[in-house]
């Protein structure tokens, strides 16, 4: 009986992190929907949200939301693709493409959230 070659995966931490980020996203998404669509007294628009999202706490929440949502979604996509893509070069290409997409959206998001200052508009 030939024994299988053991290829370490490191999947435990990522699997656990995916669960933790899933819970975080569920909580933040609920907060997001509740604050914007139910708790808001005035009509939803720039004027209604500008003061809130300029505060450091909301900048922190929004950046964490952005980074964690991108990680959770794109890592989930990779997990699905990982089952079906076996060619070495294609795996590297697709993983690279996902990483680049993540980097672009994280950068764009942070550039939008961090310098946001309603006084300057």
């Amino acid at each position, binding site marked *: 009986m030939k024994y*299988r070659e053991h*290829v*370490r*995966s490191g999947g435990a931490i990522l699997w656990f992190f995916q669960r933790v980020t899933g819970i975080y996203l569920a909580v933040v998404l609920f907060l997001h929907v509740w604050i914007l669509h139910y708790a808001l007294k005035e009509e939803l628009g720039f004027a209604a949200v500008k003061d809130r999202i300029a505060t450091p706490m909301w900048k922190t929440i929004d950046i964490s939301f952005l980074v964690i949502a991108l990680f959770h979604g794109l890592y989930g996509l990779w997990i699905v693709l990982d089952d079906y893509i076996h060619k070495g070069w294609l795996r590297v290409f697709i993983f690279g493409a996902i990483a680049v997409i993540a980097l672009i959206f994280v950068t764009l998001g942070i550039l939008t959230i961090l310098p946001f200052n309603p006084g300057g508009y």
Partner: protein
Amino acid sequence: MATHAFKINRYNPDDERRGHYMQEYPLDVQKGWTILDCLNEIKWKQDGSLTFRRSCRSGICGSCAMTVNGVNMLACETQALTLKSSTIVVEPLRGYPVIKDLVVDLEPLVESLYAVKPYLITKTPLPTDQERFQSPEERAKIDGLYECILCGACTSSCPSFWADKKYIGPHGFLKAYRFVADSRDEGTREHLEALDDKHGLWRCHTIFNCVEACPKDLNPTKAISELKKELVREKIG
């Protein structure tokens, strides 16, 4: 007595050009006949070339696992009339290479089973005057785990296995957890090592096909979840 049409997926390795094809056999199915009885009737009275595995005809050996009307089951444990269909489609277990007709090559099943070290690993020497004792409560923890007959129905129904033929599969995970959960076993690390692998535990996406397929009503998905928790506990502490 009712006339049924048995559509059987045939394959003869000596006739590669023909490949896989469906062949239909009419059969008067009697009350109480299992799918295995029907296949025997066809083989003995209609077509001696029809090939399938069977041994115990009592749901113990797991030899006659096959796909009947799209569902994995043991031919010897399934009465044909309970399917409530006049057409019965019989195919070999999916995902494994077919050797002939309904006989598949279960080498991947055995190979991945060996990887999880499916035996009791002990470090402390056995006392000379007694066995390794277990309390009734400790023994109860391996209920629903030790009953696996290794028929291959679960792994054959698993999309993760269809996509990755080196995937250990639900049968391997269930067997690994049977020993991890056993109070007498002292080799948890050895059992878990093969699972934290590129083709291991993290390929399971909790699809539950294995639970549906198991003819012994076992729950490999639950065993997989327990193993995942075990591995995370080991990594994170």
